[in-house]
């Protein structure tokens, strides 16, 4: 899975450089998130701008990350959902669980 990590103060932004998040690559994302929180880092923004298709496995990887963040009293926030991704979050009611922002900058501002 292609990802790019960027640190902004104490927050890390994970840009997912894939157009799909599905059963084929969701385990890799799960591992990336697990590894991030395993390194004693606490706050993560995942930018979904390039994801145009997500399935239940992709949602599951993000939920898994959310649970790890909660357990460690950290945070996992999302930004830049495309329309299909937004619809899937609404359908599965996960939009009520995650803090979701229009842009990465908005997500970063929420930590101020």
């Amino acid at each position: 899975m292609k990802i790019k990590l960027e640190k902004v103060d104490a927050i890390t932004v994970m840009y997912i450089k894939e157009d799909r998040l599905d059963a084929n690559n969701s385990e890799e994302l799960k591992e990336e998130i697990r590894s991030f929180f395993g390194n004693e880092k606490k706050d993560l923004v995942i930018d979904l701008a390039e994801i145009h298709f997500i399935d239940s496995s992709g949602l599951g990887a993000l939920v898994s990350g959310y649970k790890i963040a909660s357990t460690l009293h950290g945070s996992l926030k999302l930004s830049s959902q495309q329309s299909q991704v937004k619809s899937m979050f609404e359908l599965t009611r996960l939009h009520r669980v995650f803090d979701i922002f229009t842009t990465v900058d908005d997500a970063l501002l929420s930590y101020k």
Partner: protein
Amino acid sequence: MKNNINIIVTIPKDTRHLPIIGRVCEKVAQEINCAEELHKTLSNNLAIVLTEGLVNAIKYGSNGQLDNEIHFCINVTGNKMVIRIYDKGIGFDLNSIRPPNFTKSRLEDKGRGIYILRSLMDEVKYHKENDWNVLEMTKNLAKSDSIYL
């Protein structure tokens, strides 16, 4: 609605091939006689329904034999769309699958696939047909809100 589409596709039992599904769905959606602005939504919905169904077949479709393929067909006649996914695996009990827990404190990583199918389609059935497990999903395209996600 004048539609008469019948497509049968065979793919290897491997999640690497899932992106192909999106392209098949785009083509099918283009062929369906509906308002132009709805084609994109229809294509997205078809792609998610097929992806969830196929991933399910890949997960439960392994029985140790050399049946490394999954077949699916999309049939649209008039307003009725029927999608069938065939595999020869161990199968599962559709009726035992409950909706996911939506409570924040009780979230599960898994268990949303069938819920998504049931939400987007009018009817979801699972049965045996000779040696095949068949996941059959039906949708009435004439219902006003039927193709919105």
